């Protein structure tokens, strides 16, 4: 019972319920957007926007409203951070895929969603560790602009084909998937061990 209570308090303190509602809203938004007739640019760039939105929602839950006291007292904190972040990332990818599966069509398929959500979440987790959870969105949103540009260069050379800019690579590309996976693993490790660089009062 104590364990469940601890998880519940942690989740409430990190606004996880709100994050789940936001993820559901984002997935619904994607499904509605997929009803439209998008041109070749839009069909590729649209899912990336929603994937980035889901990723920043996950990353926003890293902010702690307690700061240092919680770090000192919380023995289970690293495990809670790992579990909640991992589950939320899976939920983000899952809700997007579920929304698209109900009669929608993602131009780059399932693997693309998994790769992008994991990679962009990883960028956000690293940003949270460096710049603080309050500004953790800066990395993912900047990456979104770069990713959309990489997709644009598929039609307008010189094409950006760096594997670190994985949204521009095909879904089955191993290099892009490895880079995204590495970034996610690094972000998850850093956030598990150190947590976000929080200042008291930043996380509303």
């Amino acid at each position: 019972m104590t364990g469940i209570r601890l998880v519940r308090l942690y989740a409430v303190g990190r606004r996880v319920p709100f994050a789940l509602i936001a993820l559901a809203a984002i997935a619904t938004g994607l499904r509605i957007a997929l009803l439209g007739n998008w041109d070749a640019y839009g069909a590729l760039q649209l899912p990336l926007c929603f994937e980035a939105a889901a990723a920043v929602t996950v990353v926003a839950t890293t902010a702690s409203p307690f700061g240092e006291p919680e770090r000192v007292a919380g023995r289970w904190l690293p495990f809670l951070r790992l579990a909640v972040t991992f589950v939320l990332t899976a939920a983000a990818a899952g809700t997007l895929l579920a929304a698209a599966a109900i009669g929608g069509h993602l131009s780059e398929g399932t693997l693309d969603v998994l790769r992008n959500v994991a990679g962009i979440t990883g960028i956000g987790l690293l940003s949270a560790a460096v710049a603080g959870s309050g500004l953790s969105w800066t990395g993912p949103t900047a990456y979104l602009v770069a990713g959309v540009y990489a997709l644009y260069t598929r039609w307008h050379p010189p094409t950006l084909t760096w594997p670190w800019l994985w949204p521009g690579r095909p879904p089955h590309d191993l290099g892009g998937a490895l880079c995204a996976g590495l970034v996610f693993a690094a972000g998850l490790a850093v956030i598990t061990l150190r947590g976000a660089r929080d200042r008291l009062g930043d996380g509303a």
Partner: protein
Amino acid sequence: MTRLLRVELRHNAMVLLLPVVVALFWLTTYRKTVAMAPFWNVRAASLQLNAVLDFAVSVTGTAAWMGSREARHRLTDQLTVTARPRWARLLVPWAATAIWALVVYFGCVAWLYAATAHQASWGGPLWWPVAVGAASVAAFSALGFAVGTCLPSRFTAPLATIAAFFVLALSTQLIHGSQSYWNVSPIVTGPWDMAPQPGVATFYPFAPDLPIAQVMFLVGLTAALLGTLGLPAGAGGRPLRLAAAGLTGAGLLAAGTAAGLAGTGTLGPHGMIDIPALHDAASDRPLRYTPVCSHTAIPVCFNPAYARYLPATAGALAPVLDQIAGLPGAPARIVQESVTYRQEPGNGVAVFYAGRSAGPARVFPVVLADQVPGPAMTAAQMADQAASMYAGGLVRGVIGDGPAASPAQNAVARAVLTAAGVRQLTISSPSGKAARGTDAPDSGRQEVAPGTTAYAAAVRFAALPASARRAWLVRHIAALRAGQVTLEQIP
């Protein structure tokens, strides 16, 4: 207030984001834009489109973060007892965010325009696209700030940022033709789905109709958003709230009017969107410039903005010009002309050469490949294409070959082209389309088939020494054009 602004400038989150913004600008705007042809219009359009996206993302999020600061720190109640009204207090961090973003934006513009000034051969910076970018920075900072103030949460800044980017980048999907209200979006620089064209604002002045409407929309939006911050009961006294309501109303009116004006725009013949209520007739008059000319046998003259293409193009045309210079019917000059744009159904744009309206008859007009939509080309590729497209026309103007020409005219024309090193032609048709080869429709040229007597005469004539060939042409050109020369009479 000045001291408060100084404090806010020192503690603004935008400062932390400056490296990110500059890196983003370098990756998606600078690299791409400096790789484009160095025409001011092309560079300015690319700057507006890309820089607005770069800055909108960063500034929306930062402003939302700054706007939610009071609530995040749970200071709202404490700050209500300060001497300044809440509205005035809120405008200071917004101003600090916008100032930082604008400083970086103008720095980035200076960086790009300095590179362009170094490369461009003619013209000067276009400031209206820069103004649209600056107004966008202010508007998106106001949008982020208003959202952050009204919905203070850890989720507000990131989701507002992505929502702003989504609306900005993908709303252009709704544009259909030049008469679209969505043209008021600050990332629209001309007919949507047509890349910035070097020929636009090169032969005619830049028409700022659309940028004026966009700036008006963005300023109106900024005023309306900032005004809404002063509407709640605790924002200030009654006069202040009335002023805020007035500002909101005026802002909404300006933004609505601007969107309405953008909807009345049409694609003008010079490639820019003309809005009747904002259009200055002076921008329909051609620009005055001194063309840059080559020192070939017949001068090739270009708009000075195209000076970098002149040596290669003149070099490619020189062999043909050497053959025909001084002969009756030869042009005195080859002059680059502007093209005309016309809106087609949907977002299609037709680009064509409408012909010379006036001017000396002995001028041969040319349009470079860079002036029509298509893949980017190097100077050498453009020169080859110009030689391929116009060599036949130049010779035809002298020899008079064509559908009704005599076999001798066709043979001599083929011989002159062979002597000039032209093996295969791309024939430009009056419709503006180009076709390669000997069976091109509308070509007006009867190619000489190998194995015929005309072909033998062409080979014979081409093999003559240049001086002998020229001397014969000078003596017989009038008779040749009149169809009085037979194949047997060709030496």
